[in-house]
């Protein structure tokens, strides 16, 4: 009947409808998709608060301590190959490099090749070694290319960061996943057999943004030394934004380092060590309101060093186990709030378990653990338009040394909004690492027969204590595009934990009647002045100048039975200076020069008298491409000038050149 006809016509009608519909839909579709069109709501509607009062950083002029920031541009311009190189740009900071590529970073000297008095955090995760103290910079699971910024708080900050934030605190902030979209490939080749390659990818899918980096680097170490390294790493950082108020930041990383060590002697044969490091970190941030947020963070750090060898002394074959495993579990809760216009508060609680296993050092296969609990609160009170008070304290309890209270009070007086004076008093503690607390190193034959005790800690060491008084000035001169930070400081350090040689040590089977014992045997006073100037004479030029003058007075026990002490003054260089100039030339050429000078210093441990040294690095880079695909080629020259060493006279730096190619695509 009619039906087939209708169907037949219907098809034609439908086809025509589609064609027409398609034609019309082109211009209309823009209109039709109402979500794509701006409305008054975009102007009148709410935007979730992003930079809330609790998220905003305290301006430098309001801070209770001197702060130095090394930003991405400085990191690149410095031509740094390893992360510690960057700290030479921080006033009063020294970098010490020893055999086996052991690097230490310290403030006002007062260190050996393990800088135990400096706290280092990467995105809020402490990487201070619970076993040795200090930081194994070479085996950190982080690539220098992934660092966005480094903030250094120069001064004791246990009130905020807990124990071991003793002389200073280093905060390393990595690139946020959102800032790393696309692919990046960086390769470096250069002297000392250096080859580095890093691939990073960043992306986003819906509410999740991520970046991961895979890197490999190797070098042959300093000439004439058996200290090459091969290191590979993988790091991941992802952020999931559930809604405007809840975000989850997830990070993990793995670092595997194969390093050479030994001097070829029978007691210290050539060999390789393996260091495996990994970490996992989860941070949940909840924004309650514009004036309130809290975070809950959990992380785990793990480091495992394998170094076992047979040393021959005369006719004895000794088994040396230098291996250790250290693991940290940390849970932290922080609540930030702004109860009134003039007051900002932050308080929090933290619990931590550090466990360490080191058969060769503890003379047992058991874990040596330290449990830490922390409770802290800090307030920033602007009680007068010209005055700000920062006051806070941390109570900390740990298995090794019991309970400490670390307070800090700072008063900032704003003469004008651009000129601020700061008066601060702060106390901090350093808790001994498991090594200093529990070491029981016994020289053993291959069959396990104990011969001699080499080092012993009785577990009675008190924490080291520092009290610093500071007068600071922070000024801005907008006409000159200059910012100046000045600091006068005086610190008293007591109960310094030293390895003293006990010359009447009861021997085991066979020995020399000596052993190193870890005891509170030192004190010092360090005072001085520091200045940091940042000057931008033109839009394209940046000049960064630092100078530090410091005097150390004190002594440290070296021997007991009979007692012998050494003065500590030599461990702090009187003058530490740096100058860095960065300039952008036309046609996208970039050049930078950095000059560093550290006066005569003899650090603790195996430190030799450096006699004072100065050195310079330079870098020239050319940027290519403007679109999505960009490249940069850079030539870096390091250690220009005379050869020098900064810790051990065998570890000498000579001229080095590096070529870096960076691709973004």
């Amino acid at each position: 009947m009619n039906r087939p006809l209708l169907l037949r016509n219907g098809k034609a009608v439908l086809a025509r409808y589609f064609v027409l519909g398609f034609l019309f839909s082109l211009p209309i579709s823009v209109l039709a998709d109402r979500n794509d069109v701006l409305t008054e709501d975009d102007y009148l509607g709410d935007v979730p608060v992003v930079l809330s009062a609790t998220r905003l950083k305290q301006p430098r002029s309001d801070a209770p301590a001197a702060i130095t920031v090394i930003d991405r541009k400085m990191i690149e311009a410095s031509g740094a190959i390893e992360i510690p190189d960057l700290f030479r740009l921080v006033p009063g900071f020294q970098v010490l490099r020893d055999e086996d590529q052991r690097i230490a970073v310290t403030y006002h000297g007062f260190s050996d090749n393990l800088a135990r008095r400096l706290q280092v955090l990467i995105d809020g995760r402490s990487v201070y070694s619970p076993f040795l103290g200090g930081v194994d910079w070479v085996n950190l699971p982080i690539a220098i290319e992934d660092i966005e910024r480094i903030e250094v708080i120069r001064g004791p900050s246990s009130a905020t960061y807990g124990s071991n934030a003793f002389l200073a605190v280093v905060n390393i902030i990595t690139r946020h996943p959102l800032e790393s979209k696309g692919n990046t490939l960086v390769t470096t080749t250069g002297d000392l057999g250096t080859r580095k390659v890093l691939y990073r990818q960043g992306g986003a899918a819906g509410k999740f943004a991520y970046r991961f980096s895979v890197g490999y680097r190797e070098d042959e170490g300093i000439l004439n030394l058996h200290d090459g390294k091969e290191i590979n790493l993988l790091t991941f950082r992802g952020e999931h934004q559930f809604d405007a108020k809840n975000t989850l930041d997830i990070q993990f990383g793995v670092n595997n380092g194969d390093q050479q060590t030994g001097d070829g002697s029978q007691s210290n044969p050539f060999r390789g060590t393996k260091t495996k490091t990994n970490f996992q970190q989860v941070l949940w941030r909840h924004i309650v309101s514009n004036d309130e947020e809290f975070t809950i963070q959990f992380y785990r750090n793990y480091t495992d060093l394998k170094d076992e060898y047979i040393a021959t002394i005369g006719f004895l074959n000794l088994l040396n186990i230098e291996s250790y495993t250290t693991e940290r579990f940390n849970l932290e809760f922080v609540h930030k709030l702004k109860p009134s216009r003039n007051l900002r508060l932050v308080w929090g609680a933290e619990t931590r378990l550090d466990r360490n296993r080191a058969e060769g050092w503890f003379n047992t296969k058991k874990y040596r653990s330290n449990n830490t609990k922390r409770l802290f609160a800090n307030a920033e009170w602007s009680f007068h338009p010209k005055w700000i008070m920062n006051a806070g304290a941390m109570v900390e309890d740990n298995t090794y040394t019991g309970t400490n209270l670390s307070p800090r009070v700072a008063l900032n007086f704003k003469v004008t909004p651009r000129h601020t004076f700061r008066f601060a008093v702060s106390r901090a503690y350093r808790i001994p690492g498991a090594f200093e607390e529990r070491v029981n190193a016994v020289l053993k034959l291959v069959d396990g027969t104990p011969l001699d005790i080499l080092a012993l800690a009785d577990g009675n060491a008190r924490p080291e204590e520092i009290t610093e008084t500071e007068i600071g000035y922070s000024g801005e001169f907008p006409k000159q595009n200059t910012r100046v930070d000045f600091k006068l400081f005086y610190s008293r350090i007591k109960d310094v934990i030293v390895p003293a040689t006990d010359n009447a040590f009861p021997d085991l089977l066979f020995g020399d009647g000596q052993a190193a014992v870890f005891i509170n045997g030192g004190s010092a006073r360090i005072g001085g002045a520091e200045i940091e100037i940042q000057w931008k004479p033109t839009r394209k030029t940046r000049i960064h100048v630092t100078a530090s003058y410091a005097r150390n007075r004190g002594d440290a026990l070296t021997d007991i039975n009979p007692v012998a002490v050494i003065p500590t003054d030599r461990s702090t260089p009187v003058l530490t200076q740096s100058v860095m100039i960065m300039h952008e030339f036309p046609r996208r050429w970039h050049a930078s020069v950095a000059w560093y000078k550290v006066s005569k210093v003899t650090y603790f441990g195996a430190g030799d008298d450096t006699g004072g040294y100065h050195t310079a690095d330079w870098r020239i880079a050319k940027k290519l491409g403007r679109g999505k695909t960009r490249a940069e080629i850079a030539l870096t020259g390091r250690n220009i000038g005379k050869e020098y060493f900064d810790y051990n006279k065998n570890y000498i730096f000579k001229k080095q050149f590096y070529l870096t190619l960076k691709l973004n695509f």
Partner: protein
Amino acid sequence: MHQYQDKGTCRAHLPFIGKCTSLFFIISLIFLCTFSVKGYSARQETVLIVSSKTTGAYATVINEIRQKVSNPRIRIRVVAADDFSKSQITASGQRVKLVVTIGTSAARQVQGQDTPVPVLNTLIPRETYNLIRGISGTQSASDPKHSVIFIDQPLSRQIRLVRIALPKFKRVGVILGPHSRKLKKDVQHAGRLGGANLFIEEVNSEKELVSSLSKLLDSVDIVLAIPDKRVFNRRTARNLLLISYRQKVPLMGYSKAYVNAGALLAVYSTPRELGQHIAETILLTATTRQWRLPPAQFPRYYSVAVNERVARSLGIYIDSESVLEKKLGSGG
């Protein structure tokens, strides 16, 4: 409201009336009054307000219009956009002389129906107005029968605010999306006039936003946010604010809410300010024969918002909102 005023006028004549004739006169006056009121109301002309919504900011705008349009000759009627139909204009006795739309959906609703009276669109972004009206480019043609008061601020005003508030911030970055790209010439023009050194990045999608922003942040002192639904919207505000804050480059927003969220500053118009401008335009239009509308206008009244917390945190010294408002106003 206006009728009561008329009765008051009648009452004012009462004391001059003789006692004996008072009753007659009172009666006839009441009659006359009533007649005249009736006659007056017959001459009253209606402005029909079609509003996307009648609560919140829309209510504020409507109230402001009602208060400021104090001409007894003009009656204000409000209808929600969803309830609007052409018959409300053409119905006998309504004497609708002007339709004022508030908001985008109201503008669409009225645009969809061929209204016989002049239409004034308000609370609508320029980009959307041009889209609805089928105007290509950025020049909104002058039409006495159809005009607009945009909700967005002119670029020149925004750039002038940057120059006044932050004289050292000469390098101004702008990101343009697929929609806002049409503004490129305007942006360049405003930049030239304002003495700003503009850096423009064009992006096609949200995906490209972050890399373009990062590139921009390397070379500019401040980023001027120009809304584009595809890239620069409330959803992406978080990333933009976070990334630019991390790079220590402030953002200039386009609304008070953007400033609360973390932008350093913005010039914007409050619903009351918009209401006042609309009221003034209604009154002005009413004085012309046949309700001839003025050409398209940007908001006449505006405020400045400054996020002092962000300024302090970035180490930027900036005048207070009121000082900036004064400076911006006096600069013409």
